[in-house]
C-alpha cells in the first residue's frame, strides 16, 4: 500500500462523500460548497493520475470560477432568508436509474482486462503543450470561439430590458 494508494483512497472517499452530500442536502448553499470540495478532491485525483496541469486548471476554472458563479447566481435568485428546499417525489426512479447505471459501469469495468499501468511519467506540461498546439490545435481554437459565444450569450441574457 504505497503513499499514492492511500492518497487515492482519501481523495476518492472525500469526492464520493461530498458528491453524495451535495445531491442529498436540502440547503442550496451547502450543495454548492459540497460541489467545491468535490471538485478539489477530483483535482487531487487528477494529480495522482499524472495530470498535474489538468488538476491546476480544474482548481482555477471549476473551483475558482464556476463555484463562485453559482454562488453569485444563488445570491441573485433567492428571496433572502435561508429556507430549506422541498424534497422531490421522484426519488425512487432516480435512485433506481442511478443504481442501474452505476452497476453497469462497475460491472463492465471489473470484467475488462486492462493493460499494466506504466511507471512514473514525467511532468505533463510539455506533452500537453505539444498536443494542444500541435495535433489538437483546431479544437483548441474552436474552444476559444465557444467561450466567446458563451460570454456574449450570458451578457445578452441578463442585461436589463431598457438598454
Amino acid at each position: 500500500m504505497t503513499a499514492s494508494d492511500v492518497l487515492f483512497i482519501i481523495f476518492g472517499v472525500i469526492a464520493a462523500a461530498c458528491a453524495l452530500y451535495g445531491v442529498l442536502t436540502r440547503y442550496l448553499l451547502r450543495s454548492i460548497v459540497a460541489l467545491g470540495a468535490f471538485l478539489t478532491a477530483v483535482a487531487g485525483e487528477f494529480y495522482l493520475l499524472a495530470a498535474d496541469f489538468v488538476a491546476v486548471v480544474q482548481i482555477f476554472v471549476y473551483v475558482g470560477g464556476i463555484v463562485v458563479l453559482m454562488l453569485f447566481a444563488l445570491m441573485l435568485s433567492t428571496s433572502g432568508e435561508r429556507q430549506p428546499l422541498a424534497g422531490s417525489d421522484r426519488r425512487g426512479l432516480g435512485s433506481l436509474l442511478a443504481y442501474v447505471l452505476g452497476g453497469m459501469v462497475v460491472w463492465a469495468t471489473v470484467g475488462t482486462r486492462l493493460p499494466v499501468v506504466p511507471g512514473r511519467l514525467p511532468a505533463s506540461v510539455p506533452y500537453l503543450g505539444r498536443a494542444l498546439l500541435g495535433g489538437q490545435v483546431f479544437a483548441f481554437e474552436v474552444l476559444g470561439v465557444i467561450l466567446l459565444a458563451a460570454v456574449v450569450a450570458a451578457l445578452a441574457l441578463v442585461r436589463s430590458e431598457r438598454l
Partner: protein
Amino acid sequence: MTPVLILSGILFAIGVFGVLTRRNAITMLVAVEIMMNAANLNMVAFSRLYHPELMTGQVLAVFGIGVAASEAAVGLALILTIYRRYGSTDVDRVDLLKG
C-alpha cells in the same frame, strides 16, 4: 487503474441521481457538474493507460473543463432570467409548455 474507473462510475451515478431528483435549477446544475467531472476523471485515467505521451485524454479533459465553464455561465444566465420572469427557480413551477 480499475479502482479509478469504478470511482468515476460511482460519481457519475451520483450525478445522475442528483439530476433526476432535484427540483431547484441550480442544484440540478451542481449534479450535472458532478457528472462532467466523473467523465473527465475517466478520460484522464484512460489517457494514462494508452499512449500517455499523446495526452489525448488530458486534452479532452481540458476541453471538457472549458466547455463546462461556458455551459455553466449560459445556464446560470438562463436561470436568472427565468427567476426574473417567474419569481421561482423551481423547475416544477415553470410549466407553461405543459399540455
